[in-house]
């Protein structure tokens, strides 16, 4: 936690324009020189339902959502269902002000729309305000918006009021509005922005101390999500074919790819189901395009059989899996890391695939690129596993992360000259040779002269014909599986996917994978400041597993806390399964309530565990003891 940070929460109903407003406000903070991280919480509804975005901004690096928030802009849910007597969803209209109000820090600021909300409906509101030294500014944002424009523009009024209270310059906000809109809409919004700003400055007495932090960035920043990282990584690897079916939260990557592919002369296909989606990616790749598909848990389940087909036919594909809370439909808009084992093992037979779990947008970019490179070099499916938190959460990163050369290389593909030579030497081209280097047997593409072969989901011999010969079977299985060993070596030499943070000689460790990277690192910083000796490792190389690095890390600490967003400690089980040891050292901190970890939860989880406790009070997290090997 930095002393000088703003955590601005804008809360309203779905459809109230929270998302676009927060995006622009976050960019304005970035342009003022601050580092920004956003956390988005929304229900599975189009209109109505409490939704909020938290924008955390600081001069220091911000890697995670913060603990609670210190500024609340409560718009109220203008699409709320009318509360019936004893409705189980309660009075939705007031929720943007009343929900999680206790997480507002002491001395925090509240703006609420008194045109829509009546604070007296909240139990003991005034007492709680006084007790926590909150500073409340009630404005008729709705009235203001209606006076100059439309009701939905009340979020602009809220931004104007925020800027006034925080002493923020309006120029960057105006510039961003100018980029996003035009004509009468722009005029109305600008008027509302200024009117709210002036009205606060003139009519209200400011009692709060909180001001926007000041910051400077050494280099140009961009405001991106993990979905951008994945999509841009795919584009820079020459991926020009995507097939998919809409599903939250994977749709973000799918949409970004679709928008850009039409400009880049690529092909995006929206198809009948995810079985088709994965099969199309296989067909396109087989014919010589760099192709991808993806989904979230339920859709990925449908991709199981095509995934196995890609493994045995050795067709390169990249799939992305955006996890959300399961099982079944679960909680469609809530993050969870419960699909780890699903992605690792789904499909019949021994699984043979690459799985990466990047931890932030920059890692999403680099690891998606590596996934394509490996898929096409080694003719193997590569999966990028991420989640709703990484998909929708934006943060600022240096633009130089993307300043890389494209790599459209198709990998291990033969040329027609190679085929001509093969014909001279062996009489014909053999697609699946036993002794391919590193397990890889170069492939030909339909339409190439001299390259015809049969790709089959049945076990097959060197030329591709179906074969159930026992020796051929073992040879082909061993060769295909050997590709993972080659990839392990490739990764050890050419990639640096595991992020280690904190003092090297620390006594304790925190292990995480994927999107929990940032929160683990922030917890490590705080724990060390408090006098603990702890470091973290975020693992991205899930398969092949980063055995050497994780072993070294675990050997160097007395004990490690494995943090993950699921209920059954899948990642811990994976570590033990891969390493076959350390069972006595690995404790778990699990969270699966639909919200990502806050740093404070990891800090208290660590401290409670250190003192031998098993329960973390006040938080929806659970400690699970080491099991031994």
């Amino acid at each position, binding site marked *: 936690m930095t002393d000088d940070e703003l955590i601005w929460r804008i809360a309203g109903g779905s459809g109230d324009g929270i998302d676009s407003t927060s995006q622009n406000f976050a960019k304005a903070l970035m342009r003022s020189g601050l580092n920004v991280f956003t956390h988005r919480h929304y229900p599975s509804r189009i209109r109505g339902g409490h939704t909020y975005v938290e924008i955390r901004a600081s001069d220091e690096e911000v890697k995670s959502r913060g603990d609670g928030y210190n500024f609340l802009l409560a718009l109220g849910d203008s699409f709320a269902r009318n509360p019936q007597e004893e409705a189980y969803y309660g009075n939705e209209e007031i929720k943007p002000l009343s929900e999680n109000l206790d997480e507002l820090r002491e001395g925090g600021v509240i703006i609420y729309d008194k045109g829509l909300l009546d604070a007296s409906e909240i139990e003991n509101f005034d007492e709680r305000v006084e007790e926590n030294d909150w500073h409340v500014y009630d404005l008729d944002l709705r009235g203001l918006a209606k006076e100059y424009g439309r009701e939905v523009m009340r979020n602009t009024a809220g931004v104007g009021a925020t800027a006034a209270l925080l002493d923020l310059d309006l120029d960057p906000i105006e510039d961003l509005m100018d980029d996003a809109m035009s004509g009468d809409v722009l005029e109305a919004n600008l008027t509302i922005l200024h009117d709210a700003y002036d009205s606060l400055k003139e009519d209200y007495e400011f009692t709060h101390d909180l001001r926007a932090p000041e910051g400077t960035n050494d280099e140009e920043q961009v*405001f991106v999500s993990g979905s951008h990282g994945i999509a841009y990584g795919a584009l820079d690897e020459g991926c020009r074919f995507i097939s998919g079916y809409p599903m939250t939260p994977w749709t973000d990557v799918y949409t970004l790819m679709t928008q850009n592919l039409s400009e880049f002369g690529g092909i995006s296909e929206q198809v009948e189901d995810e079985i088709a989606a994965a099969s199309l990616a296989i067909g396109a790749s*087989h014919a*010589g395009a760099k192709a991808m598909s993806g989904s979230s848990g339920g859709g990925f389940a449908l991709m199981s059989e095509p995934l196995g087909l890609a493994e045995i036919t050795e067709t390169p594909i990249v799939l992305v899996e955006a996890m959300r809370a399961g099982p079944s439909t679960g909680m469609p808009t809530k993050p969870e890391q419960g699909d780890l084992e699903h992605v690792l093992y789904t499909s019949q037979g021994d699984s043979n695939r690459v799985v990466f779990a990047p931890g932030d947008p920059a890692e999403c970019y680099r690891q998606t690129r590596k996934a394509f490179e490996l898929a096409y070099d080694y003719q193997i499916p590569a999966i990028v596993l991420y989640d709703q938190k990484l998909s929708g959460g934006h943060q600022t990163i240096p633009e130089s992360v993307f300043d890389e050369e494209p790599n459209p290389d198709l990998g291990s593909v033969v040329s027609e000259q190679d085929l001509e030579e093969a014909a001279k030497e062996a009489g014909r081209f053999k697609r699946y040779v036993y002794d391919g280097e590193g397990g890889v047997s170069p492939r030909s593409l*339909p339409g190439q002269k001299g390259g015809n072969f049969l790709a089959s989901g049945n076990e097959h011999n060197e030329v591709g014909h179906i074969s159930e010969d026992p020796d051929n079977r073992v040879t082909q299985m061993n060769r295909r599986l050997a590709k993972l060993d080659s990839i392990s070596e490739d990764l050890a030499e050419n990639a640096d996917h595991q992020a280690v943070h904190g003092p090297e000689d620390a006594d304790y460790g925190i292990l995480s994978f994927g999107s929990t990277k940032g929160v683990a690192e922030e917890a490590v910083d705080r724990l060390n400041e408090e006098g603990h000796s702890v470091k973290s490792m975020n693992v991205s190389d899930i398969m092949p597993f980063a055995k050497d690095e994780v072993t070294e890390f675990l050997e160097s600490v007395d004990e490690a806390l494995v943090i993950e967003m699921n209920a059954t400690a899948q990642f811990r089980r994976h570590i033990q399964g891969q390493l076959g040891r350390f069972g006595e050292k690995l404790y778990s901190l699990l969270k699966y309530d639909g919200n990502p970890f806050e740093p404070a939860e990891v800090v208290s989880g660590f401290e409670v565990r250190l003192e031998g406790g098993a329960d973390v009070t006040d938080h929806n997290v659970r400690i699970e003891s080491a099991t031994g090997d």
Partner: protein
Amino acid sequence: MSAFNAIGEDREIDRDEFTPEIEPQATWCPGCGDFGVLKALKQAMPQVGRTPEETLLVTGIGCSGKLSSYFRSYGFHSIHGRSLPVARAAKMANPDLEVIAAGGDGDGYGIGGNHFMHTARENHDMTYIVFDNEIFGLTKGQTSPTSPKGHKSKTQPHGSAKSPIRPLSLGLTSGASYVARTAAVNPNQAKEILTEAMEHDGFAHVDFLTQCPTWNKDAKQYVPYIDIQDSDDYDFDIHDRREASEMMHEAEDALYEGEVLTGRFYVDEDRPSYQAEKQATGDMPEEPLAERYFDDDYEWERSYDLLDRHK
């Protein structure tokens, strides 16, 4: 210069080129109608003028799926019901290929029914051959989507309570722009229909009656057959959707009453293929995507040039 020099070769093509170098012994039973499909396809290829190496044959699972093992071309023996999504994407990645998909009636009208409907709807320029033997053969004789009502098998011991799928009508309503039925016992017509189907610029659906002498002994051998184009008893306009629909309905019913009506049922030459539609809206490149990866002069776009929207 193309990286795919098998495409567009101007030369004489012999049907024997489509026989594999080492011909695997077929797993089909003696008297199986599947031999008829293989033979008709080998005969049709030279007529269409496409060579083995510019042809991609994608098959599903079942006895029918073995077609790609006995036919020499680029082949993809995929999974049960999924030949169409694999095939249509290959066609989009490289539209210069001749793409054929094939599978059985369980594969195409049962487990892969969703893909059949949507591939036909999209009108990809490809040919889909459905081996229709009214039975699951490779799994030893279970009731299939085209088995007649009342069909008894180990999985339907009291007789199927379901009416069979109407494959021709399904092809038509889904959007196929060429719909025909032929039979293994009618090799000349089969060859002609497969030739027309491949030459057709759009999704051509061929319901190919393939008798199963092992598991469907009770069923007809699809003789005698009637070619509806040659018969004076059937007069309808194959370009008229309503008339075609009625004729299909009649033929589908007649099959289960012992009358085998074959021929062309519907042809729409005006409907643009999916490729043409996508290219018209700028959603598909004019040059085959697969060629781009071999073009050393191509300037690959960079995400770095997209970053203004993130500042």
